[in-house]
């Protein structure tokens, strides 16, 4: 049992010096009040409409999982196809994705995390067209967690002592309760989140199966949320098992029906990956030859569905589905 001590101040022992995305919990609340639909209205639209409407040049964007695993790839492709500019990317648990977005000319800032530092990324860095701020995967997802609670910062037990700390928005303070040095990190409220889920209804009530990265915090923390779904299911189905709904409709601004949106990656419980194309994208970004990949898989088609039709075909899709033999935990 401890009686509250009463320091008049809390010491700030160290502060990172990097720019960080604006923190404004009250402004975020007002955005929610003015823009988030609390009525049950259909938000179904095409990937083209969703990206036109909800992704703007200069936006801070987070996407969930990555290009290989339940990635919102149809939306990522559409963002590149629409040539969005100067995006600030939450580069947590990413792999080839940042290299693709930078290669496509869409990104000018990255908070990392982890990403493959490809020739395109290095060129952009050298040319001063890209800035990178230094966090780590969990620090990024904890920033989203704080953003998802509407609070300006959150204490964490990692990140202290690293050089990343210096190139970030973190601070080291004396915890007023224990007197111990404690790291706090700034909340993250992205402008836009794109998330691929297994099932959603037309209002945006979304089910996710399997492990995840920060899908739910990202949906809560972001001003604009685009959900793509392997399957659109009926709201009656949602109401029949409310325990499966991970993201409620009111967080979601657009719902895109997008079977095989994770291609060439896997969507657990639905289909395995296409290993040849997974290797192709790795080879492309690592060798600094991302353009041919983008040309073939993104720019030469008008939509994800056209890409599946022209470049993949039924046999391969059925084979991917066939190779995914695990069902336990992935169905209602």
């Amino acid at each position, binding site marked *: 049992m401890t009686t509250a001590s009463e320091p008049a101040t809390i010491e700030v022992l160290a502060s990172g010096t990097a720019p960080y995305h604006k923190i404004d919990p009250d402004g975020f609340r007002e955005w929610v009040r003015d823009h988030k639909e609390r009525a049950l209205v259909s938000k179904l639209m095409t990937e083209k409409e969703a990206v036109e409407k909800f992704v703007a040049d200069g936006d801070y964007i987070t996407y969930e999982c990555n290009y290989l695993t339940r990635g919102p790839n149809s939306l990522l492709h559409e963002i590149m196809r629409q040539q969005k500019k100067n995006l600030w990317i939450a580069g947590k648990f990413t792999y080839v994705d940042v290299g693709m977005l930078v290669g496509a000319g869409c990104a000018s800032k990255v908070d990392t995390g982890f990403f493959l530092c490809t020739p395109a990324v290095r060129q952009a860095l050298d040319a001063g067209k890209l800035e990178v701020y230094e966090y780590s995967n969990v620090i990024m*997802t904890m920033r989203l967690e704080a953003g998802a609670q509407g609070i300006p910062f959150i204490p964490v037990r990692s990140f202290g002592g690293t050089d990343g700390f210096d190139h970030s928005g973190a601070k080291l303070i004396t915890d007023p309760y224990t007197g111990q040095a404690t790291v706090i990190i700034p909340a993250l409220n992205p402008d836009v989140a794109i998330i691929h889920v297994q099932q959603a209804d037309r209002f945006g009530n979304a089910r996710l199966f399997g492990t995840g990265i920060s899908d739910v915090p990202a949906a809560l923390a972001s001003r604009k949320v685009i959900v793509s779904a392997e399957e659109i299911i009926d709201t009656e189905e949602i109401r029949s098992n409310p325990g499966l709904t991970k993201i409620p409709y009111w967080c979601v601004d657009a719902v895109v029906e997008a079977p095989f949106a994770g291609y060439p990656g896997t969507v657990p419980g639905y289909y395995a990956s296409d290993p040849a194309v997974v290797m192709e994208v790795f080879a492309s970004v690592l060798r600094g030859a991302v353009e041919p990949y983008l040309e073939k898989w993104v720019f030469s088609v008008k939509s994800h569905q056209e890409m599946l039709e022209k470049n993949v075909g039924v046999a391969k899709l059925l084979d991917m589905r066939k190779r995914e033999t695990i069902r336990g935990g992935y169905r209602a």
Partner: protein
Amino acid sequence: MTRAEAFSEREVAMCNVARMVENGRTYWAAGGGTPLYSILLGKKLYAPEAQYVTEDGVIAPEPMLPYEPMMTMLAARATYRALAWGTMNTAGIYSQLGYMDYGVLNTLQVDKHGNINSTFLGEWGAGGRRMHGPGGADTIAACCWRTILITDQSKRKFVEKVDFISSPGFLDGSEGARERAGLPRNTGPWRVVTPWGMYDYQDRRLRLIARVPWVTVDEILAECEYLPLVAPEVKVLEAPTEEEVHLLRTELDVRGQTTDAAGGWIIWDGEQYVRGSAE
């Protein structure tokens, strides 16, 4: 256990980590390469009751092996038959709470105090070479009770001071440095394993404690830019067994992406192990 006739350097390191895996302990495997395969190897052969998590918050899976290429987290085969499914913050929070006994990770550069660089070679912001960043390793290095680092034995990897601390070791090496930086008490680097040897820390400084039979202490020290302390008795590690390399090649790293990625091969010439090529 049968002696293996030929194996790669990376396989040596993984086998040596695998043999440290303990029943009833928890492991956080960084990413999906050597750390994950080392734990799985240990779990399959030596410590079936070891439990692990990966960054996507899977808890104690019984994965369906082998994996598809690059599909070592989130994928259905990797998270199969887990006791629970979580998220990245699940993994982060259990490690913050002290539930993770060991973190196993690999790196590009380590220094005398166990600090890890996976962000930048050279001076940050002034040329040099950007790398991939810490990923989950920062949290592993900060919050697991003990960390096991896997890396290759080479001068450019064992340095006096890393160019950039991506994931914390003992920082400047002074007592209490981690605590003063806000990290949990009594945590820190525990072992470094390379294909040639093994290190612990004495007073927060790297110390060579074991070597493989086919490499001398002097050869190891020649591949350290920073000369580590050397234990009074440097143990000789056992070579990989046939069982170990068979399992690695048939169930774990079946495409050889991890094991073949770097380093040479070691071959039994009938009398002893010699370094050679795989041809």
